[in-house]
């Protein structure tokens, strides 16, 4: 059965290897120069005011590099979906549509073993491909990520820190979970729907929904967030919005003393810790005359309350999320085994 699975999987495997090779060539051709630019910028090993060096480096990253940077992120984010749609969904539907399941299931092999082999080999390949892309990209983009972290998020999205949407989802071990889940989801849709094109569409829709729900709704709650209060210092780097009638809001995207932390929520509170949205009248006046009411607000005891995930939770969150996706993938695989080994069949 391993041979048959491999033989049936061969065209996809060739495509995957070609895609990996193309990605490797693209990164291999541009990566060393990017690394040498980074070394020349002396951002690494810099003491003191590094912001300037990092900004210079990022400004020098032009031409093809931002293109490769964005393309790489897109490839890694899309890979599990593409695998689910083009490897997972047709895996079983193809057998149903051509009737070959009748040939396969009347050989001396149980359906459970047949399906298990078909799941394991392409499933592992899906994981290897996606994680392979991620590791290559991780090597390539490391200088940009490091420099952008120094600047606190200028020019490149990786500057949002390791928890940022493209960064967290494309690095570490989570691509393993996404690939396994995408593939298993495709297979399950195929087992239930039995027709290739609708199964592909359903796979894509569900996978996209899950991949949006995870960073927006689930990942922030994987671990209870840490609460902190940040004073409105003169070098306050948050974004402030002012509206009519003294209404104001603070949004913090960088927390002093916790660089790279994932800020989940932030807002102005008074000395008692209650949220405030209207400035004291004297501060409204300051805002109107100087444009910066920060010090006035600070003198009123107003500070910023923040909830965040510290960087120390990066790997626990990576592993937890990967575990969730792998568990989902295994549950789907188990369902497929149960379903095909079960009674109903057309």
């Amino acid at each position: 059965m391993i041979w048959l699975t491999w033989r049936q999987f061969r065209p996809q495997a060739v495509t995957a290897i070609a895609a990996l090779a193309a990605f490797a060539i693209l990164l291999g051709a541009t990566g060393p120069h990017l690394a040498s630019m980074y070394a020349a910028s002396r951002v690494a090993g810099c003491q003191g005011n590094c912001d300037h060096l990092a900004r210079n480096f990022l400004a020098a990253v032009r031409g093809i590099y931002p293109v490769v940077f964005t393309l790489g992120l897109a490839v890694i984010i899309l890979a599990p979906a593409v695998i689910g749609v083009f490897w997972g969904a047709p895996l079983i539907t193809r057998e149903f549509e051509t009737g070959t399941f009748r040939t396969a299931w009347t050989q001396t092999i149980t359906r459970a073993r047949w399906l298990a082999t078909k799941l394991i080999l392409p499933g592992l390949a899906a994981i290897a491909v996606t994680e392979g892309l991620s590791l290559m990209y991780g090597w390539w983009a490391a200088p940009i990520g490091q420099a952008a972290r120094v600047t606190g998020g200028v020019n490149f999205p990786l500057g949002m820190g390791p928890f940022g949407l493209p960064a967290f989802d494309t690095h570490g071990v989570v691509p393993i979970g996404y690939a396994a889940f995408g593939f298993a989801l495709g297979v399950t849709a195929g087992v239930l729907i039995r027709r290739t094109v609708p199964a592909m569409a359903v796979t894509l829709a569900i996978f996209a929904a899950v991949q949006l729900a995870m960073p927006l709704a689930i990942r922030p709650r994987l671990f209870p967030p840490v609460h902190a209060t940040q004073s409105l210092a003169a070098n306050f780097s948050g974004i402030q919005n002012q509206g009519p009638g003294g209404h104001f809001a603070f949004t913090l995207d960088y927390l002093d003393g916790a660089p790279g932390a994932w800020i989940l929520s932030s807002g102005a509170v008074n000395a008692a810790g209650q949220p405030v949205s209207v400035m004291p009248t004297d501060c409204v006046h300051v805002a109107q005359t100087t444009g910066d009411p920060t010090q006035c607000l600070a003198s009123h005891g107003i500070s910023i309350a923040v909830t965040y995930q510290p960087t120390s939770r990066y790997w626990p969150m990576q592993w937890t999320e990967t575990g969730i996706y792998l568990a989902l993938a295994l549950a789907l695989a188990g369902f497929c085994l149960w379903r095909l080994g079960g009674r109903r069949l057309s």
Partner: protein
Amino acid sequence: MTAVIETEGLGKRYRRLWALSDCTLSIPAGHVVGLVGPNGAGKTTLLNLAVGLLAPTTGTIEVLAGPPRARPAQLARIGFLAQDAPLYAGLTVAEHLKLGARLNPGWDAEYARRRIDWLGLDPGQKAGTLSGGQRAQVALTLAIGKRPELLILDEPVASLDPLARREFLEDLMEAIAEREFSVVLSSHLIADLERVCDYLIVLVDSRVRLAGPVDELLATHHLLTGPRRDPATLPAGQRVISASHTDRQTTLLVRTSEAVLDPAWTVSEVGLEDMVLAYMREAAGGGRRRAPGYHLEVQQ
């Protein structure tokens, strides 16, 4: 006589539609059994149940004295050629043989290779580019190569042209002669079955209408032609399967184990096809659907 397939009240429902219902039959071992019936009689459903591709909704089915599915030991004993001979279009003929070897512990590689060779097929050709006849041959090789005790063929020649059909059946007969296994073969083309089968089962609406060795069936069915008369006046022991009348003449198909003595009748042999058709018509509601004055064509 042991049975290769034995069913009891067997039924299979797809959502609200019964493809087979309350089917009780016994298919004896050591024969080439032809399973005939009109489209929709439940032949394919019955055979898919027999090889475990389907699970029954009601009733029981035993194949080679065991439940049809689940264990590899049972799967190894049954060779199956599904309708339209589904093969992997992207795999070559040789790769299909390799598939057979990898998935069947009892695989007879020597036989399979010899057969493909003898059929004149190119082992390197992709199955997707084979003709219908060639595909059926490869699928048959796959089914026989696992050395089954029972070979089940579901409409193996339905989609083949007449020449390919004849060649396939001749090859099948040779394979059957060469190796010893029971065969169950379904078809709605009775003329084809006549060539290979020595036992016949007529299935209409899930019911067995006629079953028995072909010789015996032919020996006990007679076509009587004579002056017009009421079939009800025939002696006991002569069962009328079909009757047709013109103004002056009556033609009857009767089943009897005794000789027909009445000199008023001209007794002639009946062909298998006419016999089977008569049973199918009988099942479909006697002669009511026929046009008046219909004559049964007689093959001498």
